């Protein structure tokens, strides 16, 4: 059973969320303010975090940054539409996905399941892209001798591109294959996470060689 940490300061909403999630078969723990979030994460070791952005004590973006320092645990932000710029900053801070208030429990649960689903067994255990070597069994990524820490989402994103080198993936395709959105979603998710991925694997972020933008279309792996 997956354990989910809810960080939400509104008690009624948190309780209703707990009911919904427990009814969907998840184990739930919570933190009701920003300061308790990281300790609750360390104590409960959840499989996924639902993170409200506006929190007393410490906001969602700070919490996200702090957790990302040594964990790739999936984080889904719970945002209101007015917090658009905050939402982008949350993605940049490492959140994997977001759900806009007011959300339906089915939508939230499907987002959670998408993030918790294990990777499909690839045909080759080792995938190479330029100097990068991806071990699909241990989920280890190396660039030469250096180990690179990617979150599961970033791993999946890079793997999706690397399995079909030089094939162009549109943002919508990536949303479907990596995020598992079955209908139109926010392509900014892709943009932000490609940026984060590049910052970890590229020699020069401004001149990417491994994850290349194809103007007007999307992205592809490898320059050749």
């Amino acid at each position, binding site marked *: 059973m997956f354990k989910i940490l809810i960080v939400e300061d509104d008690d009624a*909403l948190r309780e*209703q*969320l707990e009911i919904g999630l427990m009814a969907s078969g998840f184990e739930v723990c919570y933190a009701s303010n920003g300061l308790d979030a990281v300790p609750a994460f360390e104590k409960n070791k959840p499989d996924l975090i639902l993170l409200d952005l506006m929190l007393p004590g410490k906001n969602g973006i700070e919490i996200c940054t702090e957790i990302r320092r040594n964990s790739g645990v999936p984080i889904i932000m719970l945002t*209101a539409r007015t917090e658009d710029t905050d939402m982008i900053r949350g993605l940049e801070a490492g959140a994997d996905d977001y759900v806009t208030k*007011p*959300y339906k429990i089915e939508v939230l649960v499907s987002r959670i399941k998408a993030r918790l689903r294990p990777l499909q067994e690839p045909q080759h255990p080792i995938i190479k892209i330029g100097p990068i070597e991806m071990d699909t069994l241990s989920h280890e990524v190396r660039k030469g001798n250096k180990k690179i820490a990617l979150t599961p989402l970033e791993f999946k994103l890079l793997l999706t591109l690397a399995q079909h080198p030089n094939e162009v993936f549109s943002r*919508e395709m990536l949303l479907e294959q990596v995020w598992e959105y079955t209908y139109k979603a*926010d392509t900014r998710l892709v943009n932000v996470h490609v940026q984060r991925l590049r910052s970890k694997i590229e020699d020069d972020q401004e001149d990417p060689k491994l994850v290349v933008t194809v103007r007007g279309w999307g992205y592809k792996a490898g320059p050749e």
Partner: protein
Amino acid sequence: MIISRITKAALDRFRSSLTLRALVYTVALSGTALIILGGVLSVSIGNGLFSRKTEQAVIESNRAKFTVSRLFEGTSGPGSWKLEQALQEVVPELESIGVSQTRQVAFLHSDGQSNPKNLSSPTSVGIDLGLITEDFRNLVISEEELQTRTVQISRAGESTPAILIGQKFTLPGGHRYELYLVYDMYNEQQTLMFVQRTLVLGGFVTLMIIGFFSFLVTSWLVRPVQEAADASELLANGDLDRRLAVRGTDVAAVLATSFNHMADSLQEKITAMGELSKMQQRFVSDVSHELRTPLTTMKLAADYLNDNKEGLPPFTERSIVNLHGQMDRFDMLLADLLEISRYDAEGIEPMFEVHDLNGIVGVCLTAIQPFADSKGVYLEADIPSGAVQCEVDSRRIDRILNNLLTNAIEHGEGKPVLIRVAQNERAVAVSVTDQGIGMSQEELSQAFDRFWRADPSRKRTTGGTGLGLAISYEDAQLHLGKLEVAAEPGLGACFRLTLPKRHDITDIESPLPLAVLKP
């Protein structure tokens, strides 16, 4: 063509410039006055010169009478040689008397009488005897007094006015003679011409000076008006801090003071209204936002109840269904309200990226197909082959299209809906044309108003929040594009979205027509 264009340009300039108009009027009026004055002066000087010359000529002619009488004294003897001798002296004698140097003389033996001695009729050298007409001679012969007449003589190839004076004489011995004196008025004519030239030149210079001063004065008078006009224009364009400098206490200063006063109160009102409007927008935004969290809880609860309503008493179950349905509607309303309040607060940051419009339209059509099927509406797409690339915020374009398609399907009365895509050099366009109930002129003008519904009964059962088109309109504006509508009652409506290919292109023309389908 060119001349008429120049004329038109000059006319436009004339109409638009107060200074130029004042200048032209002043110069025209002064010019007329000067011409009248010059004419009067010229005529009166000419008359003066002429009458003085005539007087002088008459005086000299009278004096000539005595000279002639003296010459012919004692020539009444029987021999004619004395008479003839005297006759020979008449012309030189008369040419040399008086002050007028340019005098010609003719001393003619009157015709029609016996001239037994064959007396001569001496004349000055070069006199034009044609001047002395038969008429005039008859007049001279018949009258006692001397007769004057103005004639034209030619002098040095030029025609010059002259005075012809004639009188009759009876010489001793009964010989009747007429004396004709021609005083040419060359000098007077020259004087008059000089005076006229001076008048014309003087008038012209005076006119220039008047024009120059009137320009100075008008400019000086018009300047405060011009300044006020410029300031009004700037004020109207939103430069609310614009004021006029107040100088002195004259009418210009009063104008400036009143203008500033007006600008002050205008600025106060606009600022106050702006603040009020901002507060209202802020309030709407805050309220919408504050409603989010409780709404989410309510929605989650309603969803949970809805999922677990089996086996509950029928009234309870029905209540849950209603609660659940209305929560969804409430949610949609709030989302649209929030979106439009974000536009009002200018808090929109669009994300422009190059997209294929065909692709966006295709995705939209696929997504809406089930809804169209449920209404029995056939979606017909007229889409060009190849990519229609444009720099847009795809989420917003998607939202606009979704909105237009939903409306077309809802109001299309089951008839096919035509979706067209096209592009030109600078712009791309999508149009959605239905063949439904259409709209009247009045309804057309309100189509993009908030909470306005094409359905006159404002029936709420057909979904939508009433904000859809208002948001779409703002979305189009955000792209520097246009969302337009044409409709006719009973024939349907055509909504056309035109977008610049890049978001820095302005001044675009739509590659698609904006018209309903004619049956």
